[in-house]
């Protein structure tokens, strides 16, 4: 099948999903009123509630929901074959993804800008809010582990990448200095810093630089592949240096003022990512590659587990992700100028993210191809597969010919690295605040910025050094999908409380809940009864015990939540029946 056919299928999915299904729900059930005052207008305080233009909000929403999830998830899921992955991306976004994002905004708007924490307290039970916070914490921890392994062990170990990342970071710092201290024009700042960053990525691919990092990593060619010596556990010298660079970056991101580090680096990184995506799409359209011999269906039980339920937690963002509901309710709903903008902003951004996931899917299938995917075990190194696929797309319009062999792969790797790091430093920041808020009264030392950050980074380094990537990705996806279940449950309860049709959110909730709990139970079973007995080293045992325990904790939290949720459903149904009488 040609890649353009896949793009066409995705476009049809978007056209019918957004143009027909979403619009009909919007018009018939939600019935937005453009003249109704939204919280952004009613409570405008210049801090939390500020009305924003719908196009600006669309960009904000998309940027807030798209990270590594929609890129790595589809590539990992190709271990089951391309057809299940493609179907889940399109159908998941069609029936569940946009439903969650759009209705999270609507609930936030109609409930005076309340966050999901407050809503779960009111609509489900007081403990539901604590469960939500626990999901968020585990989810963030898993982000740190999964992204940390990807960056520290996979991307940074390529000797053409570290200098590029360091120079992009320095360009970001320059952007902060130019904007906030030297008060320079934003266009000048953007041009100067983005050019510095692009040149930096190119310099990183030059031979002397690569030789320097190869020597630093102790790389030696064994059977045609560069291998770094093992230092301890399963950590090589390259992986050790890569993971330390991740920690330093995140530490500075968490303790420095946000305008000095996180914001300007994210700003410059945005342009690098944008150019990469646009260049890749352009190459895809020029090259029109085919999926070739990539099998449509490979096997029901793959290395990550059985297709059901594991596929549905492996691809989270791109199809449906609980994270989106938090962004939609806490951030976007408080900035919506008109109720009628909700579908464009929430639904539109979700469908665009689906398209983003399809591009990543094509980078692996039509770009890299099956032989290389199987040889590299692409499900364990999805970042490498994506950067190679992106490089192939970029080469369709001659990027490597212009800037030297290997530039495309280095660009793709830096693109993914900064995309991950710009999320990770904000996650550490949030974890620091969360630990200070939750335990600061009992342990005042946690209120110290450095202590809170170091504790979050110790958890992170534990996961990076010990946890197997596929297992951590599975639990990351499951925590994310449990948040999606909670969001869909909340939305269902809200629709019931307003005597509106709730079938379109209830069935997605039921599917996501059963699937995610199934995925977690399978992971706990596999960790304790299959992988653990096979371990011969203590670090392997520690890893699988940790993963199994985390899966079981999430199952227990999910069951408590659904018990409370079902009670609330019966309560609302009784109230509805009473009102009808």
């Amino acid at each position, binding site marked *: 099948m040609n890649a353009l056919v896949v793009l066409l299928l995705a476009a049809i999915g978007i056209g019918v999903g957004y143009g027909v299904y979403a619009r009909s729900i919007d018009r018939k059930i939600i019935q937005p009123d453009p003249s109704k005052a939204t919280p952004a207008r009613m409570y405008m*305080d210049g801090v939390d509630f500020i009305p924003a233009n719908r196009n600006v909000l669309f960009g904000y929403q998309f940027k807030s929901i798209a990270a590594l999830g929609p890129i790595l998830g589809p590539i990992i899921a190709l271990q089951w074959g391309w057809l299940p992955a493609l179907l889940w991306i399109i159908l998941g976004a069609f029936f569940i993804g946009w439903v969650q994002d759009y209705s999270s905004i609507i609930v936030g708007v109609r409930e005076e800008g309340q966050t999901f*924490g407050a809503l779960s307290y009111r609509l489900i039970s007081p403990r539901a809010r604590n469960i939500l*916070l626990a999901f968020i914490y585990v989810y963030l921890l898993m982000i740190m582990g999964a992204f940390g392994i990807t960056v520290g062990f996979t991307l940074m170990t390529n000797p053409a990448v570290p200098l590029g990342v360091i120079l992009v970071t320095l360009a970001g710092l320059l952007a902060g200095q130019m904007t906030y201290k030297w008060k320079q024009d934003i266009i000048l700042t953007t041009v100067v810093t983005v050019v510095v960053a692009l040149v930096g990525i190119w310099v990183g691919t030059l031979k002397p630089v690569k030789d320097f990092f190869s020597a630093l990593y102790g790389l030696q060619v064994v059977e045609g592949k560069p291998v770094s010596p093992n230092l301890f556990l399963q950590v090589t010298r390259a992986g050790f240096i890569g993971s330390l660079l991740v920690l330093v970056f995140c530490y500075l991101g968490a303790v420095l003022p946000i305008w000095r580090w996180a914001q300007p680096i994210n700003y410059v990184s945005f342009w690098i990512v944008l150019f990469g995506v646009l260049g890749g799409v352009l190459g895809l359209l020029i090259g029109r590659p085919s999926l070739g011999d990539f099998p449509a269906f490979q096997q029901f039980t793959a290395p990550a587990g059985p297709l059901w339920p594991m596929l549905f937690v492996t691809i989270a963002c791109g199809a449906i992700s609980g994270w989106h509901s938090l962004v939609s309710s*806490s951030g976007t709903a408080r900035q919506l100028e008109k109720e009628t903008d909700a579908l464009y902003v929430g639904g539109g951004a979700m469908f665009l993210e689906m398209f983003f996931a399809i591009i990543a899917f094509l980078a692996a299938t039509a770009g890299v191809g099956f032989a290389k995917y199987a040889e590299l075990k692409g499900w364990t190194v999805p970042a490498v597969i994506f950067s190679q696929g992106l490089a192939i797309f970029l080469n369709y319009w001659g990027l490597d010919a212009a800037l030297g062999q290997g530039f495309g792969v280095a660009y793709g790797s830096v693109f993914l690295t900064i995309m991950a790091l710009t999320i990770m430093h904000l996650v550490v920041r949030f974890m620091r605040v969360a630990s200070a808020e939750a335990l600061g009264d009992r342990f005042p030392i946690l209120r110290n910025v450095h202590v809170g950050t170091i504790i979050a980074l110790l958890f992170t380094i534990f996961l990076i050094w010990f946890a197997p990537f596929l297992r951590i990705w599975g639990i990351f996806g499951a925590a994310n999908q449990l948040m999606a279940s909670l969001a869909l449950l909340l939305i269902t309860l809200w629709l019931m409380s307003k005597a509106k049709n709730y079938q379109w959110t209830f069935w997605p909730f039921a599917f996501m809940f059963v699937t995610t709990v199934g995925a977690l139970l399978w992971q706990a079973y596999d960790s304790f009864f299959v992988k653990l007995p096979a371990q011969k080293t203590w670090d392997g045992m520690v890893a699988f015990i940790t993963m199994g325990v985390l899966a079981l904790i999430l199952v227990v939290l999910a069951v408590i939540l659904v018990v409370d949720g079902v009670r609330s459903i019966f309560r609302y149904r009784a109230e509805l029946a009473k009102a009808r009488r």
Partner: protein
Amino acid sequence: MAEPKSKWRNFLDGVKSVLYGMAGHDMARFALKTRGSMEHLFILVTMGDLLGVPILPPYYSLRLLPYVVPQIATWKRRMLRERDLTDALA
């Protein structure tokens, strides 16, 4: 002839807004939030008695009162609104 040009202009404006939303909106929001938080903190220190914070309003608070009046409603609402960690994600 004028209509297609205006549509094109609208399209370009739309693209510009989307790019701004992706690249700079968060930075602008953060700057506004910082300023707003500082102002609200200042009002709390000087006019805290309006919320029942036990401070004796000094003479200067009365001098500042006319300047604070337009913000009192939104300030009170923000100070008294229940919050949890999910607010920090916004």
